[in-house]
């Protein structure tokens, strides 16, 4: 039997960067094939060429043994290639059925379509009511719409781009069941991810890309997560050096019944949140995106002030009514999730971005004037200590890649030696090497006696990093407990919370 998909010598050049350099691999029928690599390794570009969004500069695509050209996604779907994107394209105000009907290439009467949808869902155990409005669905349920949409075309190859980044562990398990069933029926699956344990659990073959080149095609079940990670980043992976059995000092950051007002759009406010972080402790806050994380960060950083002065206190001093500048003076620094336009100003030089948050703590302001020399020196230190790839302090923040900008931002806050640091998604979109460096810096800061709060959707990150863990769901925070006392299942249940996903 010929290979379902075979790529040979695929090359794609973008201005200034070779996104794919002579990449060749094959996917067999019924195989779950992982495509693994860091951000910017060329995974997305490769997949876009398979799905017809882009054309390769050189090389050949063979489909079931025949050389083909895929001019556009419609042609790809005709061949039997389906794709589920990382970001869904759904209309919130429409029902599941209407959304699927809109995405069909051919017009199918809605009664017939509904029957087919119900059939597909029954076959693969995808529970979903076609008449529900998308706005009322959880992220996991929304993803199912996209999967159903792809399955309606009876695909022979299904491409999944980072499908689990927004799912609870239980939802991930359900997804894997569906994918295994599909594979057993002969549908090939190209699974893009950087989560190694998932790949070990799910995939038969893994193709690893680095810097646009194919590094290795291996059997993930024969590899360790570590060996695959090292192939991915091309060097030895540093472990987080975290002293065991550390003891924590006195309570540093105390949050007592903190609530915020609804801002009226997108984000959920937090209700009655209480927790304590001691000196030297890292508290992880887990949760599915959009459950009040942004409101919590804004309330802690001081961007949104509280009416209750004592809702937040540092070393016993109530800071609830202070703005961000005053809170920084008292030792509380914060890093929001959104890098460009929130944690940093894209149009400004890195040096000017240092002035944004470090001006008081590092004496960059003398009598209302900015000491640009001090800002440049400090920025140079951040760039050196955190291995930020930038031409220098004068580079604009917008010219840095996401991972490098995040390293700069984390460095800018950490080198201020805050006594309390609150960070959201510290390694979101950051490659494994940079993530390890950021994690180590956080651990070192805690070891030096700071209290740290890490808000993240990445459970692996939190389990590696945090000493204690709490879960946020619909704006409410569970009680914090030592991270060792949690099982993944339990975290998942808490994350799913009132969505009722866990029971499904």
């Amino acid at each position, binding site marked *: 039997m010929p290979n379902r998909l075979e790529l040979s010598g695929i090359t794609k050049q973008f201005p200034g960067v070779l996104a794919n350099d002579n990449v060749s691999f094959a996917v067999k029928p019924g195989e779950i094939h992982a495509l693994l690599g860091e951000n910017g390794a060329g995974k997305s570009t490769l997949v876009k060429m398979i799905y017809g969004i882009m*054309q390769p500069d050189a090389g050949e695509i063979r489909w079931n043994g025949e050389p083909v050209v895929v001019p556009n996604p419609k042609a790809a779907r005709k061949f039997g290639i389906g794709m589920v994107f990382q970001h869904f394209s759904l209309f919130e105000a429409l029902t599941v059925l209407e959304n699927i009907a809109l995405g069909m290439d051919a017009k199918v009467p809605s009664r017939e379509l509904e029957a087919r949808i119900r059939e597909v869902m029954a076959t693969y155990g995808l529970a979903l009511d076609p008449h529900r409005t998308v706005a009322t669905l959880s992220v996991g349920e929304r993803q199912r719409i996209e999967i159903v949409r792809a399955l309606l075309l009876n695909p022979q190859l299904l491409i999944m781009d980072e499908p689990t980044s927004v799912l609870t562990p239980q939802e991930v398990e359900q997804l894997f069941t569906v994918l295994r069933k599909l594979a057993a029926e002969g549908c090939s699956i190209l699974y893009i991810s950087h989560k190694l344990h998932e790949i070990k659990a799910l995939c038969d073959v893994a193709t690893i890309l680095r810097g646009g080149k194919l590094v290795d095609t291996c059997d993930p079940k024969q590899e360790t997560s570590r060996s695959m990670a090292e192939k991915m980043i091309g060097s030895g992976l540093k472990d987080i050096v975290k002293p065991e059995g550390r003891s924590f000092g006195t309570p540093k950051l105390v949050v007592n019944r903190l609530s915020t007002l609804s801002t009226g759009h997108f984000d959920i406010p937090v209700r009655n949140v209480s927790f304590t972080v001691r000196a030297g402790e890292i508290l992880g806050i887990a949760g599915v995106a959009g459950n009040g994380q942004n409101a919590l960060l804004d309330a802690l950083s001081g961007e949104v002030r509280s009416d209750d002065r004592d809702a937040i206190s540092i070393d016993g001093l109530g800071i609830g009514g202070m703005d961000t500048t005053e809170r920084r003076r008292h030792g509380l620094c914060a890093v*929001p999730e959104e890098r460009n336009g929130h944690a940093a100003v*894209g*149009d400004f030089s890195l040096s000017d971005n240092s002035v944004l948050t470090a001006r008081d703590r590092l004496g960059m302001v003398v009598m209302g004037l900015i000491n640009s020399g001090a800002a440049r020196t400090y920025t140079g230190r951040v760039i050196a200590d955190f291995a930020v790839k930038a031409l220098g302090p004068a580079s604009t923040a917008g010219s840095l890649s996401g991972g490098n900008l995040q390293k700069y931002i984390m460095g800018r806050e950490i080198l201020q030696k805050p006594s309390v640091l609150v960070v959201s998604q510290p390694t979101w979109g950051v490659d494994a090497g940079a993530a390890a460096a950021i994690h180590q810096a956080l651990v070192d800061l805690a070891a030096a006696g700071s209290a740290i709060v890490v808000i993240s959707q990445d459970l692996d990150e939190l389990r590696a990093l945090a000493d204690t863990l709490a879960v946020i769901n619909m704006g409410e925070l569970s009680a914090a407990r030592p991270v060792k006392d949690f099982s993944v299942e339990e975290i998942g249940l808490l994350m799913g919370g009132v969505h009722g996903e866990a029971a499904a």
Partner: protein
Amino acid sequence: MQFRLEKRREPSRVVLYSAPLIAVLLTMFFGAIIFSAIGYDGVGAVREIFLTPITNSLKWQDLAVKASPLIIIGVGLSIAYRANVWNIGAEGQYIMGGLAATWVALLTHGMGGFWILPAMMVAGFLGGAAYAAIPAFFKTRLNVNEILTSLMLTYASVQLIYYLVRAPWKDPMGMGFPQTRRFASEALLPNIVPGTIVHAGVPIAIIVALVAWFVMSRSVFGYQVKVVGSAPHAARYGGFSENKTIWLALLLSGALAGFAGALEVSGPFQRMVPGFPTNYGFTAIIVAFLGRLNPLGVIFAGIIMAITFVGGEVAQTTIGLPSSASGIFQSMMLFFLLAGDILVRYRLKRVAPQGEARA
């Protein structure tokens, strides 16, 4: 062949600073074509408008006197626009500053004293700032668009002049002309170059621009304005209040416009007349953009705009161009500048037609 705009990795500094020059050159080029097409001597029009004011040294004093209010107002607007605060009503604030200075001059008529002129200047500052406070209040309290409020207030201020010079402030010896009495000598701006019309407002304009440049490039206030303007979210994270910045930007740009009004009424005009509004406040919008929202650039932009004003008058007498000609040239300049600005962030890239990819 198709072209596509592609985002640059870093904004192009070369384009940023050459765009105003290119805009001026394009304006001259297309200006010549347009005026030729409608039956005038197009090349001559461009020559008279852009070159005569520079080559004829008799016109230099006119340039200086026209440029200084444009520079003072333009500096204020460049600061406001940096903060993303769109004060379009500088003309109204200029008028209110002029009226406030006039009020002081009339009140102190016959008193004498060196303090009268400074008091008029302060009144000009306050008058302009107070008038700009109205859009600031509505913007920060009720989120009313400052473009509309500041622009509409301009027309209200024009009516206020008409009322004042026709009734309460009318010159008793003026033979019925709608104007105030001529200010006493203590209330007149001194001439600094004997034998010309160059008054003290000219060096003041340069000083205002230099001080503003220093404040904007070096101070925390300048930083605050720039952060709020380019990333309001980051500004909040950095500890800068957006509302406070909106107030400061409007008050400061209003105060400078009012100051320019006080200088004009006590300098060239010497009294308040219905013809006091001369669109300096609107032209200064072009000056601010042409000067790249940079106070030093505003000095040059103010001079270029003054050239088109003075040149427009020359062209009226020498080749019979209509008085609106300089307005057309000024608008074209802004148009080309804004169009050229897209190339600061983007570059034109040739792309192959879609069909080729299928081959």
